[in-house]
């Protein structure tokens, strides 16, 4: 039980400890939060906004090797004991091949689970240990998701309304507790609260549109009428409407030309510089290197190395063979195969 106590409080203690470590440039592979900062530490500021430890995500499926009817169901892990951390004012890029299961990490953090999935591990947010319920309560508020494409918007609802997001259950509830106690007055109060909330959200949406260069008329468009670049900014606005502290972005750039992709990433940079954290999930390591502070390399169901972007300056700074292979595969290094 003392161990348990330890873990609960660890992230708080770790925060103080690790600044000191970074300053001294210590590289302890057994660092409590599983990541190294290489030779030039960048996150001397901030504390762990998000910390994921030993997260495993698995599905029940039949063993395909066995004959059809003899096959037994078993748990197959797609993510296996993965650990990653995101600090304030930081963009961490989770890099790995497409279809390797990176998105499942986003699902786990956003508390959005498929019926047949098994998810276990430890997730802290802002120093607090989370469970499924508390994560679900954070989703859409302190933690926001930027999905891959406009397909995540309802094709039949105008963009403006979708950015405002409507009233979620949690906002409802908080209203309720502020509301009048008398049962007779409650309904009226609730209604008024709802109206205020709607007005507040509408105003916030207009501000966000103005900030991200979207004309007010865009609010009246339907998703299929948006251009690729506009769609990403709308999706970003969806995330920002709840004033999040952490943004999880799942492949936010495919389908965009380089200029548009960079603009999207600049928006994330601006968000991070404003004090937030970004977990950027992408298969595009080049883009990740241009914008992220740290890179987490996803390989074989887990993160094999979590390191500073600066470590990618030279393969010597990279510890895992797969990271080095990635380095060698970068265009400026001549696409050569992994030189071991």
């Amino acid at each position: 039980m003392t161990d348990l106590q330890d873990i609960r409080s660890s992230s708080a203690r770790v925060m103080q400890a690790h600044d000191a470590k970074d300053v001294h440039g210590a590289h302890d592979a057994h660092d409590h939060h599983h990541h190294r900062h290489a030779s030039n530490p960048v996150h001397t500021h901030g504390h762990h906004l998000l910390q994921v430890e030993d997260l495993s995500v698995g599905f029940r499926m039949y063993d395909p090797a066995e004959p059809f009817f003899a096959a037994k169901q078993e748990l197959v892990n797609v993510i296996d004991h993965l650990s990653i951390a995101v600090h304030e004012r930081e963009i961490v890029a989770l890099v790995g091949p497409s279809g390797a299961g990176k998105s499942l990490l986003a699902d786990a953090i956003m508390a959005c689970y498929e019926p047949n999935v098994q998810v276990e591990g430890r997730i802290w947010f802002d120093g607090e240990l989370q469970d499924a319920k508390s994560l679900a309560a954070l989703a859409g508020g302190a933690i926001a998701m930027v999905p891959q494409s406009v397909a995540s918007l309802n094709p039949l609802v105008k963009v403006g309304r979708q950015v405002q997001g409507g009233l979620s259950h949690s906002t409802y509830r908080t209203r309720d507790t502020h509301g009048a106690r008398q049962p007779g007055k409650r309904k009226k109060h609730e209604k008024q609260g709802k109206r205020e909330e709607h007005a507040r959200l509408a105003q916030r949406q207009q501000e966000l549109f103005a900030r991200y260069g979207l004309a007010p008329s865009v609010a009246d468009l339907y998703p299929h009428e948006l251009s690729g670049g506009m769609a990403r900014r709308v999706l970003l606005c969806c995330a920002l409407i709840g004033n999040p502290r952490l943004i999880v972005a799942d492949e936010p750039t495919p389908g965009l030309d380089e200029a548009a992709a960079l603009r999207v990433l600049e928006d994330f940079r601006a968000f991070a510089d404003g004090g937030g954290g970004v977990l950027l999930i992408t298969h595009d390591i080049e883009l990740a290197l241009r914008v992220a502070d740290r890179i987490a390399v996803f390989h074989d169901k887990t993160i094999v190395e979590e390191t500073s972007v600066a470590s990618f300056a030279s393969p010597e700074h990279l510890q895992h063979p797969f990271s080095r292979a990635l380095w060698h595969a970068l265009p400026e290094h001549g696409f050569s195969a992994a030189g071991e």
Partner: protein
Amino acid sequence: MAELAPAQEPVVQTTLFHAPRSLARIISNRNVLLITAVCALAILVAIIVAGIVATPAAQETDFARRDLAPSLAHPFGCDWLGRDMFLRTLAGLSLSIRIGLLAAVVSALIALVLGTIAALGSKVADGIVTWLIDLMMGVPHLVLLILISYALGKGFWGVTVGIALTHWASLTRVVRAEVLQCRQSPYIAVAGKLGASRLRIAAKHIVPFVFPQFLVGFILLFPHAILHEAAITFLGFGLPPELPALGNILSESMTYRSTGMWWLAVFPGLSLIATVLLFDLAGGALRKIVDARTNQE
């Protein structure tokens, strides 16, 4: 919410965020599904055989047991001619399933041919087949059945041909969609590039891909076919009144509705429902096996 990990692990604590429901695991077990389907189909075959055997006995009249209420000797009671209702119901079910079989085979063949033509043929062919489906669905099923049955002079062939000609539309859509999906998949293109002949591609790739869904669709045609056969016979367009068909049995019981002989209508009807549900069960179980998605459900 939080669970302690096994003692040997150095890590002390893990939060279980989500776990699959255990019930779903048991139900989606392939073996259970297979046994379900086989059992349901076996019972249906048994009904067919028993019905054929029982047909002569079902037509025996015995005025000594006229209007008998259900008892152990006659579980479904007896009618006004002293015929045993249990045997009549059995014979009727058997007849219904056999007619359903005949009609479903023809319907399925039509669906297979039209669906394949629509998917593999030209755009015009596709358009024509789609248009035919729309046409077919344009008249209420029962009205169309009455028309076809009338056109053929009623009777056995009227109802059989009617059902065979009206049930292909939905299955055609499925076949068309399946073949289309298969044709557009990359491995067909690769096989074509590798020089495989069209016939070979069809035999090697398309047929195995489409067949399972087709089989499921075929089995699930039966409930429709049987219910429609009963309805059309009930209305007087189907099987001749001397045959112990379920539609006839229920139609006769209508005459006695105010005499309080409830067993004439209740038991045959319940048996019909049970038969239809058995087909549903078999088809549903097979579908789950066939459907790759259920691997993980």
